[in-house]
């Protein structure tokens, strides 16, 4: 009963990953009677690693992932700590926190695009009204600002999700541990670092893992918000793979980029699990 379902999942997920590796080792041409494969060894990888565009996309994606995941974890933890107490309206707040998570990313990208608009965007208007800036800023106009703009849109959408996971983790910590720490003379900071943080590790690892997996697949936001621009400065590796495969019909090199993405994700996931010293298997038992 279980095997058909799991077999199906493996067929649509695991098998294509394996097939991706095979495709990335081939020279592939699309013709009228289907795709023509010819074995090409590692030549696709050579093309990818020699491409300055790949270097740029890789650096952008890594910087983007590291910055957004860290910011979201810190912000999420701060908010979770602040609201982890019996205050009125918390249930309502948690319900509202669910909404950005359910939002179609493309819609949030369009929403932020309108807010960032350099001519009639409300962000420039508000900042000018508050005399924070003198002249309008073209948010999506320079590589650095465009990167930050995408990061803000991501942090806005995902921090509530991280907060919820961490809040659930906080609520699992028994309160007598805090009392014991207090009796031992530990202050607020001390009890945070020796009680809260160690016990929160599984939740932090889970949130980090989810986010890293998502961040390295970054596609929807820059696709709509910047189109990878200005120039190619906000082109993520997923976007690069998409463009290579479906715009330039470079199936081999494009698939090689996808395989490299999988490898990076595996490495980053392992690092984050190790860093928080939480074992995914342990969660299950």
């Amino acid at each position, binding site marked *: 009963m279980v095997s058909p*379902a799991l077999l199906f999942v493996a067929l649509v997920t695991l098998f*294509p990953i394996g097939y991706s590796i095979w495709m990335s080792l081939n020279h592939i041409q699309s013709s009228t009677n289907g795709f023509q494969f010819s074995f090409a060894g590692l030549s696709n990888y050579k093309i990818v690693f020699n491409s300055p565009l790949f270097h740029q996309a890789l650096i952008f994606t890594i910087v983007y992932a590291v910055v957004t995941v860290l910011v979201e974890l810190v912000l999420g933890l701060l908010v979770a700590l602040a609201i982890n107490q019996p205050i009125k309206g918390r249930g309502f707040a948690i319900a509202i926190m669910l909404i950005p998570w359910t939002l179609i990313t493309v*819609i949030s990208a369009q929403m932020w695009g*309108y807010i960032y608009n350099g001519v009639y965007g409300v962000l420039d208007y508000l900042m000018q009204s508050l005399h924070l800036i003198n002249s309008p800023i073209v948010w999506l106009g320079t590589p650095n600002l465009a990167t930050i703009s995408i990061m803000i849109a991501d942090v806005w959408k995902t921090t509530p999700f991280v907060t919820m996971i961490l809040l659930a983790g906080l609520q699992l910590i028994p309160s007598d541990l805090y009392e014991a720490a207090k009796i031992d003379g530990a202050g607020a900071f001390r009890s945070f670092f020796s009680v809260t943080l160690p016990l929160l590790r599984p939740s932090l690892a889970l949130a980090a893992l989810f986010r890293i997996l998502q961040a390295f697949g970054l596609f929807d936001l820059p696709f709509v918000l910047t189109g990878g621009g200005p120039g190619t400065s906000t082109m993520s590796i997923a976007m690069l793979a998409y463009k290579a*495969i479906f715009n330039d019909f470079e199936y081999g090199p494009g698939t090689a980029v996808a395989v490299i993405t999988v490898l990076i994700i595996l490495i980053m996931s392992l690092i984050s699990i190790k860093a928080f010293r939480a074992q995914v298997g342990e969660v299950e038992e």
Partner: protein
Amino acid sequence: MSKAQLLTRKWIGYIVLILMLLIIIAPFYWMVITSLKSNNEISAIPPSMFPIHPTFSQYTQTFGQFGFGIYFRNSLIVSIISTIVVVILASLASYAIARLPIRGKTFIMVTLLVISTFPQVSVISPLFVIMEHLGWLNSYQALIIPYVAFNLPFAIWIMRTYFAGIPRELDEAARVDGAGVLTTVFRIILPLSTPGLFTGAIFTFVACWTEFFFALVFNTDNSFRTIPVGIALFGGQFTIPYGTIFAASTVAVLPIVILVLIFQKWVVAGLTSGAVKG
């Protein structure tokens, strides 16, 4: 903690809570009021903080001349069918996992769970080649099949926790009464684990409703596009018709918001179930 400290802590809690809610809601507010403005008002400088002459013209245009209804229909068909298939397969599989002694089931589950959260780009070229070969590009099954596969592991993960909480004696009682496995699952176990079913269903539905990458790649024909693709590719080379985009967006967001708010307790439990020891 002293009384004063507790009070300070409470105040900080309220301030953080209110700030966060404002930050979450502000862009939504902006989206909804923009969808109620006329085109002139949308590009007005300075922008008006609420619609001066509220109008539904953006909505009538979106569904009239821009034909957004097709995208809604496609999204509904794909999301609903995927959700139903996932719930049926997941309830059978998670019952088996919760009950039967399967060697290494934890390892298999965790592996599939991790792979199902991989970004779509990691499987896109083989799936595209296969879909093309089968002639399935621009069809509903082009989306339903990957959606089911990618959402099944998480649905099983969630439901398994609920199933494990149901005493085995019930199964045995049903078996003594002559019920087969399928009857046991559908008559005894499922009615007792409705929250698990709904949580799995909501997660799947939201994931299908919001999915962009597969939909963009597999269904390029306008008549098979879903909402995210419609909204992303909307607009011309030089101007972006924000009024129309936000009218469509508001309609796309509403059903999910209502669904999630109604079932919020289960959704929160499901979201955090990975962090809680099952």
